[in-house]
């Protein structure tokens, strides 16, 4: 047994260091199960002090490590590619402080996104970033990935809602980034850290902004007979200067899967695609905007636009949307979810092309995505046991990525680069760009111990 294991046991107790290979199996992958790499050990710290202790031991022994939240990440971010230790933070799940006067909450990283919103709902607040995985993913994971979600169209991403972080650096030192409610001075390390995919250190405390619930919410469902019309409606809405709080699209394959799942929402299964549009804010403007959106949908070929009657119907529509990715699991043994972003105006041109690519490779595809900010999520159905199909999936993904980059888009809007998309990085960034990123990483992690093998491609002689 490596000596560092004994040292870890000393910190958290024998029971809370897993080293039995059978019990490490479940930790070999995250939400994207095609990348499998078991760690050498898993530890369960319960406090920031324990995290510091663990990291110091690992630093001393030069053992690579990474944090893991709920493991819902979709880029292979929480996978120990180079072995080493996973710090599972699920037990650090306490809401430490809720301060309505300053509209902020202080939480441990293992707090589940939705639990925070639930905790403040009665007081009339919510935590705005709402990834579709919000019922399970942790705020620590959200910070690491700079998670988005349907309502980020209006409210912004995680980075716009994080006010401060306590971070254990890879050498075990603790720093505070941001002012936890006030402006810090100096470089925006807070903004830089959010979205660093767990490669800059381990977050042990997070201060987030709480947002007031809007006075009025209106949820519309527009259904269309062609994907092209649907995309045109999206572009028209954005061009008209209306910023819905959410503007989501689901195509027929997705609708069918959702309707067959526990999250059936009463979506029209004969539509080519639907838009789920939400407006919120002051009743006076929401009314007005809803009328214009109905009109825009109609002029762009919507067959029908309905308005959710009550909170229950609204909740059902959203449950359907948020369960969509999982529901697709019903129609396929394995699922590859892609995450690319394009300028919104190119949607009518790009989306049909994405379908054509899938067709060319003989793959089934379902699209369910954040149309309002041009964040595509093509889901490709396949069977991992069929190696030829796996190859075709990979090639199709590459073509889709190239297409998106060609029209001015980028590789990922919210899931991160992780392990999965490293190979595509040179599509958007030059060697100089990547080298600058590598310099930043080296500032935080000079020894390359913290979640190694992620984000930046490795070149023969230098890592970036």
């Amino acid at each position, binding site marked *: 047994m490596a000596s560092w294991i004994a040292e870890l046991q000393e910190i958290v107790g024998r029971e809370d260091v897993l080293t039995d290979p059978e019990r490490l199996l479940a930790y070999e992958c995250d939400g994207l199960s095609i990348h499998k790499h078991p760690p050498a050990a898993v530890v369960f710290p319960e406090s920031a002090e324990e995290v510091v202790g663990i990291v110091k031991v690992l630093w001393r022994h030069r053992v690579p490590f990474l944090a893991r939240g709920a493991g819902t990440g979709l880029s292979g971010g929480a996978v120990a590619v180079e072995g080493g230790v996973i710090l599972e933070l699920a037990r650090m799940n306490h809401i430490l402080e809720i*301060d309505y006067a*300053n509209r902020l909450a202080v939480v441990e990283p293992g707090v589940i996104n939705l639990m925070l919103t639930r905790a403040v709902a009665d007081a009339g607040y919510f935590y705005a970033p709402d990834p579709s995985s919000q019922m399970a993913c942790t705020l620590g994971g959200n910070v690491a990935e700079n998670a*988005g979600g349907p309502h980020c169209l209006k409210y912004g*991403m995680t980075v*716009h809602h994080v006010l401060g972080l306590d971070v254990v*650096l890879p050498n075990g*030192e*603790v720093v*505070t980034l941001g*002012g936890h*409610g*006030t*402006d*810090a*001075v*100096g*470089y*925006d*390390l*807070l*903004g*830089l850290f*959010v979205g*660093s995919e767990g490669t800059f250190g381990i977050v042990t405390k997070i201060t987030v902004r709480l947002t*007031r619930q809007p006075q009025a919410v209106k949820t519309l469902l527009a259904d269309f007979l062609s994907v092209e019309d649907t995309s045109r409606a999206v572009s028209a809405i*954005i*061009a008209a*200067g209306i910023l819905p709080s959410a503007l989501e699209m689901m195509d027929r394959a997705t609708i069918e899967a959702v309707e067959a799942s526990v999250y059936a929402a009463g979506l029209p299964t004969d539509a080519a695609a639907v838009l789920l549009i939400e407006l919120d804010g*002051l*009743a*006076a*403007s929401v*009314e*007005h905007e809803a009328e214009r959106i109905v009109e825009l949908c109609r002029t762009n070929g919507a067959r029908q636009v309905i308005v959710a009657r009550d909170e229950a119907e609204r909740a059902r529509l959203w449950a359907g949307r948020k369960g969509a990715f999982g529901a697709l699991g019903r129609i396929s043994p394995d699922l590859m979810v892609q995450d690319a*972003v394009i*300028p919104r*105006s190119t949607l009518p041109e790009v989306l049909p092309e994405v379908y054509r690519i899938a067709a060319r490779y003989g793959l089934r595809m379902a699209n369910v995505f*954040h149309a309002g*900010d*041009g964040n595509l999520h093509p889901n490709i159905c396949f069977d991992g046991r069929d190696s030829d199909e796996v190859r075709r999936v990979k090639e199709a993904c590459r073509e889709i990525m190239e297409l998106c980059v060609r029209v*001015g*888009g980028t*590789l990922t*809007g*919210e899931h991160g*680069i992780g392990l999965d998309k490293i190979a595509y990085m040179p599509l*958007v*960034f*030059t060697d*100089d*760009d*990547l080298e*600058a*990123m590598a310099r*930043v*990483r*080296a*500032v935080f992690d000079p020894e390359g111990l913290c979640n190694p093998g992620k*984000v*930046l491609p490795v070149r023969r002689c230098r890592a970036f």
Partner: protein
Amino acid sequence: MTLQGADRIEQELVSIVGEANVLRPAPEAYAIDDRHPSFVVFPGTSEEVAAILRLAHAQELAVVPMGSGRRLSFGNLLERADILLSTRRMTRILEYEPADLTASVEAGCALEAFNRAALPHRQWLPFDPPDANRATLGGIAAADDFGPLRHGYGRPRDSVIGLEVVQADGTRIRAGGRVVKNVTGYDLNKLFVGSFGTLGVLVRVHFKLRPYPEAEATSLFLDSEWERLESGARQILQSELLPAALVLANEEAMSALLPDYPRKALLARFLEMAPAVVYQVERVKALARSLSLEFVELRDEASRSIWEKLGRLHRLLSTDLRLRLSVLPARTVEAFCAGERALGETLARLHILAQPGTGIVHIGGKLPIEDEPTLSLVVQAIRHLRTMWAAHRGRVIVEHAPPEIKRRVDVWGEVGASLPLMRALKHAFDPKRILSPGRFVAGL
């Protein structure tokens, strides 16, 4: 720099940007605090910027990037300033696709010019930093420079989606992109936005835009005491109302803004669909009644103009000391009262603008005389405020002050445990310290 050396450099600069675009020595208007750069250069393209930096890097010349020069005195005293690099000639709008609600501009593009171009599409960049009428978008990004609209729209940092930066050694890199949602690689935008030209020269900025509001109005509450105004602010913050800006202003500030109302005031700016503006104004009017506060309503142009004036307040009052406090929002009033107590005796025309929604407090005034006792009183007051507010996570930044004060206090204040990281970042991006050396926190 020897004289011959300087001549050679001048030649090289001229060969890069042309004779008309090099000034030597810098005219008085280009002095930064009490420093006079040897050259002012006006590159016209990012290639020219890169060439200038390659030269400076090789010769270890200190380069100070500037936009309109509005914020040049923000920061610690420069250690060196050889070349002042102005983006004045780089003013193009490079891409603007209204259907994407994004745009990309050269760093020297003026905020006003851009917003004029976007207005026909009913879109805009909702920034209102001090002297907004002169501001360049590169400058706004480099200083993360905000005004009262921060309350409703966030900081410029939250609207920057991509950058092109010339690094200290002249290599160009890109950060982010032109899409509104992007987590591809590390977000280097965050590193450069707010770095005050100490890590690289921004040459191109991509922004996400906002829909331009259909209507606007400003409501004013007036009183002679803070108490009820503060309570009004609190009630607005806890209500469904969505002001784009919310500011408390003292008598001195108000007498410059609206000479008819030289009282303490709460200003709420509403930018929305027309019916929503009407609704909100009615709501706050009722609120004013319930608090028995005097109420004034300004619509459209009158509303716009008071905020425009507010952005120029420091000029209207010939301010030469300006502090920015950042405190927890619930302590806003407490903070400016503390500021008032600490500086009220020393400064003339002490004016205060505070944002109860964000906890940002600006205190400005005029030094009656720059003698030793006054200076040391001011310095003491700044130190006192810093210690007092450190206990509540508060920060006190000196945004503007005469060099004599800057010599005695770090304008940024303490950085804390993350300073070594910042030092390492500076070293990683500007190992020879040629970019605005000394200007940033802890003299980086």
